[in-house]
Structure formats: C-alpha cells, structure tokens
C-alpha cells in the first residue's frame, strides 16, 4: 500500500488509452491563464473561452481547477486531456491523503503533474493533446510554507515562477504587462492587496483579448468577469462574479 492511485488504476486496467486521431483533426484549445503573487497570497485567473481553429467552441469554460484544499491547476491547451489530468490529480491527492493518513508533499504533487505530462508526450507530439498548465500550491507540512507558482512545458519540465506566470495564446500580452508593472509599477503586483489584485487580473484579461482572438475577454457591462481563485495558507477562495463586479464598480467605474 503506497498510496499510488495511478498504480491502482493500472492494476485494474483502467488507465487512459491513447486514441487514434485522424491527422486532419483540429483539437479544441483553451486559453488564457495566468498567476501572480500579491501581498496576501497568489492570484490565479483565466478567461472562459475554448476554441477550435477560428471557431469559438465555448465561452463558459472553467479553466482554474481546485485539486485539493491547497492546490490549484490552471489549464491551457487541449481541454479533453487537461480535464482528465485534473481529475486524475484530484483523485490521486485525496486517495493518498486518506490511505496514508497524511497529505502529499508539494514536491510530490508537482512530480505527479510532471509525470502525467510526460505520459502525454505522444499525444503532444501528434499535435492533438498539448497541455501547458500552471500549478499553484502551498507546502502545508512546512509551517513557514508560502503559496508558490509553477509553470510547465508540454513535455513535463517544471519551473517555479518567482513573480508571475502565464500560459496559452494570450499569455504573451499578460506577461509583458506584468513585467512592466513589476519593474516600474507603483505598487508592484506583489505589493497589491487582494482587491487591487482582482481588478488587475480583469484588466490583464481585457488587454490580452485586445490582441488575441482566442482569449475571451472581460465585459463588465455584461457582468462577464474572469475566473479568479485566491490561494493562501488558509486555503482557496473563489472570487465570485458579483464580488468582482462590486470591486470593478468601486475601483474602476467609481460607482
């Protein structure tokens, strides 16, 4: 009994089976997600759009997924693969915690995601299963542990982001603005309180949508805001649409 849920699935022949896809297939893509440190923790956010080529497949996609009480996954890439990765990780983390009577370490969670990405390399190389996720988590076994952001390349390499990270087609614009603000901003994103960070996240998505058609923007006049989660040692907080609207009206519209 080593708490390895993937080994348990393999034992029961329930592992994912790679499908044969015709070469002309144009996979669904989900963009854009990003994360940055603010004064109180980590903000992780994304738009709601999934595209297939130049077709908008959905504008209601949930890309920020809660893996456990202190881990978040932001998905960019092919949703079919990314959602399955998230579901596998969710079950793996809970299975380990319940069977071993202790939480999995942050390092082990990061490696678990890395392994799923490596296992997905054949689909990535075929161009039908590319996933480049962001991961945010806290090492709760360390009393001093703080929220951390990690980003991955599609082959499974993992990197820590000291200030911010982004993934998906609209992330270039977002990372440029975050770099600018972190270098010359006052306050810098990492110095912002939660309210200011929430408003910034929406402004970043509006900026990305201006230059990338695959990024679904934010439309405050239509009550359309980003998906935002806030991670701290106290756990995960879902920043609801109405809360984002109230902050937007207060900070931007001056209503």
């Amino acid at each position, binding site marked *: 009994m080593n708490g390895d849920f993937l080994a348990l699935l393999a034992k029961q022949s329930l592992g994912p089976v790679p499908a044969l896809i015709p070469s002309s297939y144009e996979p669904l893509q989900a963009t854009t997600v990003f994360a940055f440190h603010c004064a109180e923790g980590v903000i992780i956010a994304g738009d709601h759009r999934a595209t297939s080529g130049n077709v908008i497949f959905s504008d209601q996609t949930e890309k920020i997924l809660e893996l456990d009480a202190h881990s978040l996954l932001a998905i960019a890439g092919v949703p079919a693969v990314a959602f399955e990765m998230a579901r596998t990780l969710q079950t793996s983390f809970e299975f380990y915690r*319940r*069977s071993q009577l202790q939480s999995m370490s942050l390092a082990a969670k990061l490696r678990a995601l890395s392994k799923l990405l490596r296992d997905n390399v054949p689909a990535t190389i075929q161009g039908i299963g590319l996933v480049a996720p962001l991961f945010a988590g806290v090492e709760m076994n360390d009393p001093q542990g703080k929220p951390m952001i990690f980003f991955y390349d599609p082959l499974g390499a993992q990197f820590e982001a000291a200030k911010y990270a982004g993934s998906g087609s609209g992330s270039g614009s977002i990372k440029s603005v975050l770099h600018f603000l972190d270098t010359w901003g006052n306050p810098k994103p990492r110095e912002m309180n939660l309210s200011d960070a929430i408003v910034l996240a929406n402004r970043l998505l509006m900026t990305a949508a201006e230059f990338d058609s695959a990024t679904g923007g934010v439309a405050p006049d239509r009550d359309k805001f980003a998906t935002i989660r806030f991670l701290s040692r106290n756990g995960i907080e879902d920043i609801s649409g109405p809360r984002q609207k109230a902050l937007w009206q207060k900070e931007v519209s001056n209503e």
Partner: protein
Amino acid sequence: MNEDPYRWLEAIQNRREYIRDQLKGGSPVFAVSRPEGILLMGVGIGRSKVFEIYDSQGMAALGHPVDIEKIRQSVIEAAHVEGFTRSHHDVTLRRLISFALSPMLKNSFEQIFSPPLIVESIFAEVGTDEQSDKLVRVNYDGNFFFENRKVLCAYGNYDKEKEAENYLRDILQPTTTIEETATHCLTAISKIIANDSTKPVEVSAYGHPALENRRLECALLDRKRPGRVKYVELDLGKNA
C-alpha cells in the same frame, strides 16, 4: 476437511470463539447521527480507530491493527476507483459494503486454513439530514445491517453494544452538542462496557477512566461543511 460438514462447522465455531477471544479487551467505537452530522468516536492511540473513507463516508473499528488497516485500505481503494471511473455521486456505502467489503470479510472468515480478519466495524455516510444518514454495523464474518435509530456501537459483545446504544438513545436530546455527545459515549464506555459507575465527566477532563492512558479519537461527518469533503477530525479531548 471441507468434505466433512461436521468438522467444517466445528472449525467455523472454533474460529468464532478465537475471534471473540481476540476482541476481548478492545475498546468500543460509536457512530451517532446528530443534526450537525455524524459523530464517529473511539478511544485509541491516535488515528487508530476512526478514519475517513471518501467525501461523505467514514469508519470506526476495533480489532487487530493490521486487519483494521486491511479493510480500511480495501474500502478506500474501492471508493476511489468508483469515484474516478464514474462520479463521486456514485460512491455509496450500500455498494461499498455489499460488493467490496462484506464479500472480502466473509471469504476471509470461511477460509479456515488462513488467518481470519479480526475486526468489528461501523461505517457511516452523512446525508442532507438525519433521516438520510446511513449507519452500518459490519461484523468480522461479513454479516452487516443498516441501523436507522441513529446510534451504533461496535464492541464484539452484542448485549453490551445494545445496552450502550439504548443508554445513548435515552440520554441524547435534539439540543445535545457534539462535545456532549462524545462525553455521553465516554460515559457509556465507563458505565456499561467497563462496568464502572463513574459519574459523567467532561471529555477534556484529565484522567477519565474510560481513556485509560489513551486518547479520544473523534471525527464529524459535517453535513453543513461546504465542498465535497465532509470529514473533519475533532480535537475534543487531550491525552489522559
């Protein structure tokens, strides 16, 4: 021996006596359905009696630690495979007990040339209200029954179990808090199981006879807890 039914029956009877003898000296565990959720309680050495199984399911058991661990792992595995391949809504106590745990216990009990599993256990599943809570008593031989009178005790001595359950049903009121419920369970251990006439005392009181240098293990399947995971460990007492 299987070809000789009388010897087989004798072997089974010997096995029952052996298991009951091994269970003597164990301390009882309780599951009590309350308006807040289901309280699971036992007295052990810390994470040795009361466990989380899945989002809404928990268990409490007494017996040999290795055997408790074996059935715990087995049910956790079955629950997670079911939750992963179907949905967390499809993980139910009725199916886990009927199709995963009970056959395993029965097989183990009746395989007379291998050692039996020495475990008496209670499983609980919290619902939206007390009426939809599920409490299941599972015996070492795989036999099980669902209890709908909101209190279950596992001890191995069935008369004492019924006595403790009736004591708790009489004393628990709708306004009784979770901490008071745990206190009443401890009192039931002292008064009924250990034949000790000690008056009820607070759970956190140092030196409660029922604790016997061990610690209180409590968990609540909290029906009001937001999110999927309802199991919360409670720190109601301290080391005696």
